[in-house]
């Protein structure tokens, strides 16, 4: 149970798996952009694919695909889903 509560950054999320947003450590314009897209604490997010060179990663949030660079994703903190929660 303790293990499920461990907090990671979004950039460490392995491809295809889902997790829940804990907090945004971003600031300024980018923080607002991310909030506007509905990436708020509590939101479920799933990593879908990486770009050809492996950098921007596309995430599925609320039915929309959004690509983020790893530098930005690393400032978004997430926790693993406990089993049985709905998928994104």
């Amino acid at each position: 149970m303790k293990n499920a509560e461990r907090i990671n950054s979004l950039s460490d999320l392995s491809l295809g798996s889902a997790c829940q947003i804990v907090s945004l450590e971003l600031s300024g314009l980018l923080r607002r952009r991310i909030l506007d897209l509905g990436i708020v604490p509590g939101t479920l997010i799933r990593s879908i694919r990486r770009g050809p060179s492996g950098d921007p990663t596309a995430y599925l949030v609320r039915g929309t695909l959004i690509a983020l660079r790893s530098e930005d994703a690393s400032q978004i903190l997430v926790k693993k889903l406990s089993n049985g929660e709905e998928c994104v």
Partner: protein
Amino acid sequence: MCAISSSRNLSEAYGQAEYVRKTYRNSFSDQIVADIYGNAEQITKHVLTNKGRHRIGFDQIIDNLVTSKWFGYPLMILLLVGVFWITIEGANIPSGLLASVLFAFQDQLTLWFQWLGAPDWVHGVLVLGVYRTLAWVVAVMLPPMAIFFPLFTLLEDSGYLPRIAFNLDHIFKKAKACGKQSLTMCMGFGCNAAGVTSCRIIDSPRERLIAILTNNFVPCNGRFPTLIAITSIFIGGAIASYSGIINALVISGIILLGIAVTLTVSWLLSMTILKGEPSSLVLELPSYRRPKIGAVIYRSVIDRTLFVLRRAIIIAAPAGAVIWILANVYIGELSILSTVAHALNPLGKLIGLDGFILMAFILGLPANEIVLPILIMSYLSTGSLQDFSSLEELRNVLVSNGWTWLTAVNVMLFSLLHWPCATTLLTTYKETGSKKWAFLSFLIPTLIGFSACFILTQVVRLFGLA
């Protein structure tokens, strides 16, 4: 007394408010946004049934292909070559047809003017100046635009363009720019002024400026008919079979060169006057849609083709009159046109062009569409050839004025890398709000264009290749 104490209270209250805001930092606003989204979620759960499942599956299959490690880039290049191949092959016959019809009508116009007993100079200005330039602009410009714009709008409507930004972002990041710059470059294919305006999608001011200053390195619709015409005459024409596909490859090569220059200049700007690190990228990848045929036709024909053609015609008509007058008013032995061209000739020769070509580019400042028509007009008004009716005869005109393959390559290079048109400069000024940036957007491509042509010409001449 009262006023002083109340103002002190006010500043105290302000200080306290600041303190509260700083201690809670973002958590308060986060809570508001989270609540709004929570509410919206509740509402959508009530009123929407989820039908999107299979759509996401369909998107996945296409995305697996177009953003894959192995097929992502080759597919992008294939699309580029494909679009230009269709444009060149498709434009070939209508261009020839339009040219023969429009020039046949010119002879008819001449007859009417003679019948009316109009003075020679009226006939010269209106028919040989205005009408002939217009005929050229329409014959050269209209068919490629009428094919390219619908194709481009189809790609835009289908949702593919953001995938280009997704694929290319890491390269732009290395140049310390934004991946969305590739979208503004796509808009630049249509029109650089539109491309500059579209730079508003880039959030970081530094990266937006980089995108604005480099947009001109994508050949716009006013330039690639020129590129297509010259390639067809000098490169594709030399290898008769498969000429269509070879022309498409050459044009694509020129565009790739433009992209390479864009990235290099973006990087150089980031290292010098626009210092900074790449900021963030938030890019939405929308679902693929079946393009709406009606909307595609409307947007590409009315909004784009006719809009651009109209602009070209408005500028070409007076330009045609001016060129004819310049070519037919004599100062001593030479016409004004020849005098200016002769003055520019040493500089032109230095970079593998000639005085007339350089003058055509300068006179083409209002719109790049009219560069080739001006050039042909200038050659025709001075040379022995007075009339011709098909695009193939263009080769004879150019060759008889001393063109070699090196001249052709230099004209294409200079067309890709020279100052932006007046509209683009004005748009840059409006978007950046500064004369300094507008001037730089003029200076950077001009310097690069002159240097590139100069180096190529000197190297080729050194090895005695042309």
